[in-house]
């Protein structure tokens, strides 16, 4: 049976484990920081010498760590893009905006083990010559912000933070900055604008790559909460040991947020790629299966922005055979290993590692209606295709869920979504379009039938169920 592998979440649910620094220290806290700052420089084969900081940067690269915030980009590579010659200060921001629907993993770390994040941040800042860093936490987590402030104060009083950290001469300050309820603040350049005290309007890339022109137009690293926590474990374990966790190119562990129609919703940490989607849903160690008498209809595998998977789908995945040759093999949806690459090859993404399960009692039309409402509400409004398109998508799905559907709505939805993706400043455009494109493609019959049924009912004189609010109940009864 598949098992959890608890690296980041090791102590979270232990009775007696508390967010204060004494508890963290008793559990080996800040040992990684002591180890890193005391580590020697490294001599390379070609005679080049790496400073201890460069060693950690190389180790993060060698660990294979990929960003846990959504895009799965190599953390080490991201750090290597930082412009170190500009003479400007380098900033680091921890993205604790956690607002991708379905995702609730960072919340656990922030509220129960804030020092694990802070240690990871101090290490990451030290490795990148950062003197000033921020934790951007979403506004709806006031308790998390309070806990972080207490934890930062404790870290300062112990000499892990502030001036002359552990006697090394290295200075670092970390401050907590609160968002105020806008999803787009999770997008890294929107986050930077927000931290500058402006509306969270994402910046266009190029030229505004954070590594070069980030916060205050200075080189900036933005990493997710969970990503930064992993740095602590890479130091503790050593990069090579860490890289043995998980699967090639998908190393380490990942916290999966499981919700929807399953018996045991919750967060589960797994070795990346060592557990399949089917195990996540059905194993008694994980989701514990569906409600009695229900069967699986669909899975949203990586947060609401990822493309939906339909029960029974089979994917062609690239796999290395015993002879070392790459070949395509058929993998049924439930056998997909939960990792970055497999889900990408299945045409979707692991995104923020939030799995939302839908059983056969659910209407895909209503489900999409709920999601489209989210994107219409959260578009920042800078780009016309996104601002107008997201609203049209919500209006069209609203029609379909309130007796006003039309036969052509399936095609209409796809048409709008296609005109958003690739035409916007930030990836929110894709995030709004992908659910729509995948829903209407994979569940076309359901959308067509709804439109046709509405038309037939109206022909017989039925009145649309007018509701001023486009929020509909999703429950089948």
């Amino acid at each position, binding site marked *: 049976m598949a098992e959890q592998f608890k690296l980041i979440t090791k102590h979270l649910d232990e009775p007696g484990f508390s967010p204060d620094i004494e508890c963290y220290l008793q559990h080996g806290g800040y040992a990684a920081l002591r180890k890193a700052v005391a580590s020697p420089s490294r001599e390379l084969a070609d005679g080049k010498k790496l400073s201890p900081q460069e060693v950690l940067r190389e180790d993060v690269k060698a660990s294979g760590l990929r960003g846990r915030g959504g895009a799965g980009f190599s953390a080490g590579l991201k750090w290597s893009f930082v412009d170190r010659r500009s003479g400007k200060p380098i900033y680091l921001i921890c993205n604790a905006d956690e607002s991708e629907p379905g995702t609730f993993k960072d919340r656990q770390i922030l509220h129960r083990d804030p020092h694990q994040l802070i240690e990871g941040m101090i290490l990451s800042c030290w490795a990148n010559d950062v003197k000033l860093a921020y934790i951007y936490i979403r506004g709806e987590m006031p308790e998390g912000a309070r806990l972080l402030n207490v934890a930062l104060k404790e870290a300062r009083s112990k000499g892990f933070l502030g001036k002359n950290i552990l006697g090394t001469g290295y200075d670092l300050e970390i401050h907590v900055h609160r968002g105020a309820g806008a999803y787009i603040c999770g997008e890294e350049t929107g986050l930077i604008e927000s931290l500058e005290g*402006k509306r969270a309007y994402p910046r266009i890339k190029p030229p505004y790559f954070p590594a070069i022109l980030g916060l205050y137009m200075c080189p900036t690293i933005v990493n997710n909460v969970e990503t930064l926590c992993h740095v602590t474990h890479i130091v503790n374990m050593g990069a090579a040991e860490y890289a043995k966790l998980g699967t090639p190119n998908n190393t380490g562990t990942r916290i999966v947020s499981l919700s929807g129609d399953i018996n045991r919703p919750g967060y589960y940490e797994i070795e990346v790629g060592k557990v399949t989607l089917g195990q996540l849903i059905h194993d008694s160690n994980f989701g514990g299966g569906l409600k009695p008498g229900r069967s699986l209809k669909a899975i949203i595998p990586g947060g609401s922005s990822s493309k939906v998977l339909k029960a029974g789908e089979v994917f062609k995945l690239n796999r290395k055979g015993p002879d070392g040759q790459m070949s395509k093999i058929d993998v049924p949806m439930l056998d997909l290993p939960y990792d970055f690459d497999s889900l990408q090859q299945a045409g979707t993404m692991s995104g923020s590692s939030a799995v939302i399960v839908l059983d056969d009692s659910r209407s895909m039309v209503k489900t999409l209606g709920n999601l489209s409402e989210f994107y219409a509400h959260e578009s920042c409004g800078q780009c016309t295709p996104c601002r107008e398109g997201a609203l049209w998508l919500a209006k069209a799905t609203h029609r379909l869920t309130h007796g006003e559907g039309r036969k052509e709505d399936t095609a209409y939805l796809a048409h709008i979504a296609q005109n958003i993706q690739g035409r916007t400043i930030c990836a929110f455009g894709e995030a709004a379009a992908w659910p729509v494109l995948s829903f209407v493609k994979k569940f076309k019959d359901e959308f067509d039938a709804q439109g046709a049924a509405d038309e037939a009912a109206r022909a017989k004189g039925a009145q649309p169920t007018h509701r001023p609010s486009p929020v509909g109940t999703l429950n089948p009864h």
Partner: protein
Amino acid sequence: MSFSVPSSLEAELDELTTHYPVKRSASLMFLHALQEHFGYISKEAMEWTASKLELQPINVFELVTFYPMFRQEPLGKTHIKVCRTLSCALQGSAELREQFCKRLGLDSQAHTAQTTPDGKFTVEFVECLASCGTAPVVLVNESLYQMVSPAAADEILRKGNLK
């Protein structure tokens, strides 16, 4: 009524300003603190923030209108935010909101935040609160309630009535 910020709060905000190399960055933190103190963000509060941070009032106003958590009029003492998004909707958050509205005599079809005439309660639908595994969730002022049953919802109202 003249607008005045207590000196202890002003000192707190002055300290916050030192967290940033550029003063403007402190805007959101200012607005949070002022809203917490006054219950909402008035025109005077925006002007005060602007002058403290050496900005134009419009620079602050455009934040208040952009970020959903900021409000320009006082809301109920008990502010109930029901999560509207998918995982919570699957567990009946729409019904939950309807229950709150019905009990309080508010319009459950309305699009925006609804406040009772006695100023005791505000009910609002908000987007995913990052606690989808314990759906449906409700944020009451600063406390998160998870797996909220109809009975638990009534308990929230009972507590609010005592305030």
